[in-house]
């Protein structure tokens, strides 16, 4: 694909937001968004892990899997790379910055099973991005996800004092809010298309 990494970065945030148009990372998005602070913590962790694992998985795919002709193992290998990286990160943070560990540490295990991380690795293989594009796409997707969860958490905080129909409380109303947010993001989609 001949799209510059810079354009791709912005496109990943706005026109093809990983959550609002590709529906990835919904589980932790719905369950963690009760508090703005914890949403921000998880979001920052996702941005960081997503950027690094996108780069790592690109290297692994092109220099190991393609080289040895074992592309069909990509799912397993990507999962292992992500899990190992998250584990390593947890150890490093715990050892050197205990303060950060208390705010970010609890979110790290959640990230291993966050489908946004794995999804981005699959997208960059399917869409044939180069190394720079992959990093830009990873970082952009992470920031897009952070933006979405922060918006939802902020709206849910306002919503606490409002009357919501009984059957809609909790997940139902979160999904409707997300739908409205997605509708707003559709407005960006004419600017640049990445598919």
């Amino acid at each position, binding site marked *: 694909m001949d799209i510059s990494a810079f354009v791709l970065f912005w496109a990943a945030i706005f026109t093809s937001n990983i959550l*609002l*148009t*590709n*529906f*990835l*990372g*919904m*589980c932790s998005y*719905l*369950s963690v968004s009760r508090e703005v602070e914890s949403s921000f913590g998880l979001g920052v962790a996702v941005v960081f892990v997503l950027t690094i694992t996108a780069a790592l998985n690109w290297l692994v795919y092109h220099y190991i899997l393609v080289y040895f002709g074992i592309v*069909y*193992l*990509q*799912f*397993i290998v990507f*999962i292992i790379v992500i*899990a190992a990286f998250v584990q390593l990160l947890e150890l490093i943070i715990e050892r050197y910055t205990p303060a950060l560990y208390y705010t970010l540490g609890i979110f790290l295990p959640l990230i291993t*099973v*966050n*489908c946004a991380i*794995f*999804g981005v690795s*699959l*997208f960059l293989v*399917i869409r044939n991005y180069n190394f720079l594009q992959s990093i830009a796409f990873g970082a952009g997707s992470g920031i897009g996800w952070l933006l979405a969860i922060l918006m939802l958490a902020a709206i849910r905080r306002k919503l606490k004092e409002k009357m919501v*129909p*009984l*059957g*809609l*409380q909790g*997940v*139902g*109303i979160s*999904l*409707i809010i*997300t*739908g*409205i947010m*997605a*509708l707003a993001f*559709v407005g960006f989609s004419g600017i640049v298309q990445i598919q």
Partner: protein
Amino acid sequence: MTKKEIFITSAFTENSIWRQILGICSALAVTNLMMNSLIMGLGVIFSLALSGFTISLIRAWTPRSVRMMVQTLIIAAYVIIVDIFLKANLPAISKQLGPYVGLIITNCILMGRAEAFASQNKPFDSLVDGVGAGVGYTFVLLLIGFIRELFGFGSLFGIRVLGAWWTPWSIMVMAPSAFFILAMLIWIINVRFYKPKV
């Protein structure tokens, strides 16, 4: 519990999507066409049932500390089979589903059933539970897919059912409609069947 009860429980009364809110990512992403929903559902049933069976089979020999990793690898192995099968036999649909086939691995339903059921129950019960949860998931996917394809394209399974007078609602093909439809579905089912507490 008999096998029939296990099936009904995991497919409907404790349905993964509307009851436990698991596996929503793919439920929203692939439902713009009914055919995609069906194939995705079948893939999930296959990997859910067999991974449940395998995990349950080796549950006595799996050390607790590495059990998550073991479960993920077993699930991944079955999903790879689904992916290769689709690529070989249904290349067009495989291309449309894109990364979402691989994403079955991180679908919370599979990990959830492995952890909540298969790691504590007998192999054949786990197989039934897996098929049940998969059928419940496929049911929701087809329901959402039905609404989106009917209004968005005027067709069902690619066959035109609404005549030329029908103006397709392009919103139904786009992302926001999926959120709205799922929210409505959860709302109706909650009010109708589960009677939320005041």
